[in-house]
């Protein structure tokens, strides 16, 4: 009997923790100023929240039906593998499309260094690539064909 009470407590804790983590990830995606900041919330917070919820579901069905379930573990593993790949591809897309970003943060991405930054769109370093051109070339934002 005590085992069921402890299992219920663990499952309830994992469910609430997963909900809070997923909520925090989506809140970060809504509230941050920048695409590169906004990328942090869903790739880490939401993934951890979904992992917590799936492990809670696995524990629930394992305890109540007295046999081990691996489907939730499969979904968890798949999400934990694919979330960093998605984050990497989204960051590459943002760098490729020269999205605007804010400068109020410490440090900078090596791809975005040595440029006059601000609320404008960011271009590649014009000095390094075109030393013969005077001044900085205003490049139009590259859009997909």
């Amino acid at each position: 009997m005590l085992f069921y009470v402890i299992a219920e407590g663990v499952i309830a804790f994992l469910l609430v923790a997963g909900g809070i983590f997923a909520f925090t990830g989506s809140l970060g995606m809504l509230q941050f100023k920048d695409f590169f900041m906004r990328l942090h919330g869903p790739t880490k917070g939401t993934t951890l929240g979904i992992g917590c919820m799936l492990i809670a579901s696995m524990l629930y069905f394992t305890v109540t039906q007295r046999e081990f379930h691996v489907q939730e573990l499969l979904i968890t593993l798949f999400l934990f593998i694919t979330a960093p790949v998605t984050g990497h591809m989204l960051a590459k897309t943002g760098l490729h499309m020269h999205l605007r970003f804010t400068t109020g943060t410490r440090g900078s991405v090596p791809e975005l260094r040595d440029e006059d930054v601000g609320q404008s769109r960011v271009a590649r370093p014009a000095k390094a690539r075109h030393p013969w051109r005077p001044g900085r070339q205003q490049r139009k934002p590259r859009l997909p064909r």
Partner: protein
Amino acid sequence: MLDTALMISLGLIVAAMSMNVIRLARGPDVPDRLLALDTLYVNSIALIVLLGLWLNTKTYFEAAMLIAMLGFVGTMAICRYLLRGDIIE
């Protein structure tokens, strides 16, 4: 206790999905909307898992697995389209 935790978790997930929809509607650029869609399908997986816990069935986990795989493929396809201008070269 489990019912209370389930209701709290459902409310949080619904709030998270509504925030994703807000970001999807007003995202200034295409990658923002893509990120919102990605988070939306991940949250829908959580919603399906909570529905399975609520109804005490295991019927919906195949749907969750399918949504996970096809959502990843869709996000990769749109990312490749934005990066290269083509999906399969």
